[in-house]
């Protein structure tokens, strides 16, 4: 019986729970000298458990990156709660956040612009350890090399400049840096877009491997439904600042009850139809 196996497992730990999250921006109009309010995110709710991945999908401007920026507390939300392992971090100030920062790490779309061009690969990975005063210098270097190995970079390249790496290698370096502080939640904002097909597949496989070895929770932001659907346990579809559909990945795609989900599913299918019409040897 399946239930027996489930009973043996420890209860799944909730890593992140977000409720009623809202954020709006003031937009100044240069011409009319007045400002209006743009609601970027409104009443967003979701929960991510250890070892699980939630994919936040939607077209550009749907508010998914704002959610990522609030969850990582790069922005302060207007309202709502962000429970990180049971602590509400939504309204903490930067000093209080300092102790929680290691728990949430982020990987950005363009790894090149998120790294100091004068840093070597090892320095990039050591930076968060240094800021958090973790370990002696030699211990930090050893940890950096260990992390490089773990993300598939040769530790021999520790002294190479980050800018001398290829796009895919830099993305691996960004993941190594994010792992340095042993986070429980990794937020990846469009971490795949702009990568070649073969590099994208490598990075996706790396995320799958890391998830298993570290029981990491992922919040993955993407506009590429087909890619994230394969990786994610749950999918939340965003449109106009709201989550319009939310559930297990297969179920969201099968039902596609909201027009935004349907549009995403359709555009993915269209690409496959081209291949199928060619009789592609898949």
């Amino acid at each position, binding site marked *: 019986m399946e239930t027996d196996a489930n009973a043996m497992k420890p209860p799944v730990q909730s890593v992140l729970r977000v409720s009623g999250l809202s954020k709006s921006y003031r937009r100044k109009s240069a011409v009319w000298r007045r400002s209006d309010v743009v609601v970027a995110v409104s009443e967003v709710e979701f929960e991510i458990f250890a070892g699980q991945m939630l994919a936040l999908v939607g077209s550009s401007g749907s508010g998914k990156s704002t959610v990522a920026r609030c969850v990582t507390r790069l922005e302060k939300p207007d309202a709502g709660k962000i429970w990180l392992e049971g602590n509400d971090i939504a309204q903490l100030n930067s000093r209080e956040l300092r102790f929680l920062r290691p728990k949430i790490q982020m990987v950005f779309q363009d790894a090149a612009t998120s790294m100091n061009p004068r840093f070597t690969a090892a320095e990039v990975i050591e930076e968060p350890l240094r800021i958090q005063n973790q370990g002696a210098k030699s211990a930090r270097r050893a940890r950096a090399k260990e992390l490089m190995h773990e993300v598939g970079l040769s530790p021999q390249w520790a002294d190479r400049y980050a800018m001398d790496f290829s796009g895919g290698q830099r993305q691996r370096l960004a993941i190594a840096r994010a792992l340095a502080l042993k986070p429980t939640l990794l937020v990846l904002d469009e971490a795949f877009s702009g990568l070649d097909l073969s590099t994208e*597949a490598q990075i996706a496989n790396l995320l799958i491997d890391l998830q298993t070895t570290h029981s990491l929770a992922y919040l993955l932001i993407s506009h590429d439904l087909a890619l994230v*659907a394969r990786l994610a346990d749950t*999918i939340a579809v965003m449109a106009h600042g709201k989550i319009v559909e939310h559930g297990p990945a297969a179920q969201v795609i099968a039902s596609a009850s909201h027009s935004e989900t349907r549009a995403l599913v359709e555009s993915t299918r*269209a690409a496959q139809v*081209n*291949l199928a*019409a*060619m009789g*592609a*040897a898949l």
Partner: protein
Amino acid sequence: MVNWGRYMNFPAQPATEALALVHDLSVTYAPDSDQPVRALDHASLEIRPGELLGILGESGSGKSTLAAALLKLLPSDARYDSGTIHFRGRDLLALPESALRRIRGAEIALIPQDPALALNPVIRVGDQIAEVLRAHVRMTRRDRRARVEELLAEVGFGHPRTIYPAYPHQLSGGQRQRVVIAQAVACRPHLVIADEATSKLDASLQAEIIALMRQISQRHGMAFVVISHDPTVLAGFVDRLAVMYAGRIVEEGRTEDIFRRPLHPYTQALVRLSARYLSNAGTRTRFPAIDGEPPTLTTVGIGCPFAPRCPEKMQECTDQELEETTPRHSQRVSCFKYGN
């Protein structure tokens, strides 16, 4: 006389004269530095009149270098090491700059990747299309204006008169892409090069722009060279496909044949990776990735450049000089699997 070289391998080639013929082209960037980059390595390619030809390759494969070479627009630190580019009987690499200026825009045009960068933000888009006509065609101002409006209508604007005076920032990304297409086809060129022209657009817009380029190509018999890193974009679009890796054309043939029966292990891997079935949702299964990284191109070694990543690597892959073969009718490949 055109040197057909290895192209003589095609036994049943239709007798149509090639529109453009790239033969044995090699290009090196920064040849005098300590790290020269061999961006194109003995690439040969035929472009036929009116056809849609796709060039598939990942970053660093040399596809953009090939595109720029077709316009002889490579940066000044690039050196043409070998080869010729014949376009309608003339060798572009031997022509003086003044003759090239008459060809660019009029006979060979480019659709850039990012129209937001290609368009001047302070000039009305209609005038920017008129500028192309003014450079190449003698006509009155009034005729030119009428012509631009026709072009705007052709690329899908319902009200060309209202679009003409618009500035680029007033248009959406898709609309700007249509404007640069109108610019490219304004002089009815024989050849249009689209370098990742749809890769920044979302999927539905991408399909619209592809349909538009197809339509224009058919209506005017214009050949399009479509460069992309995405097999799914090219699958429903081009008639023929050339796959590039490490500055070489590793496989070339009819698009259908390449997707149905890819010959080169690299092409096979790309086709497998382009399968994005939603039926895999929630399975968290690993992707059929190709291990390793493409070579850096700073060293030109013997053998196949894909060998270090190839699942079917053999002894001869690393110690013999690679030659092209045509194991199947009109499908050529550079791989030792098919004999040498």
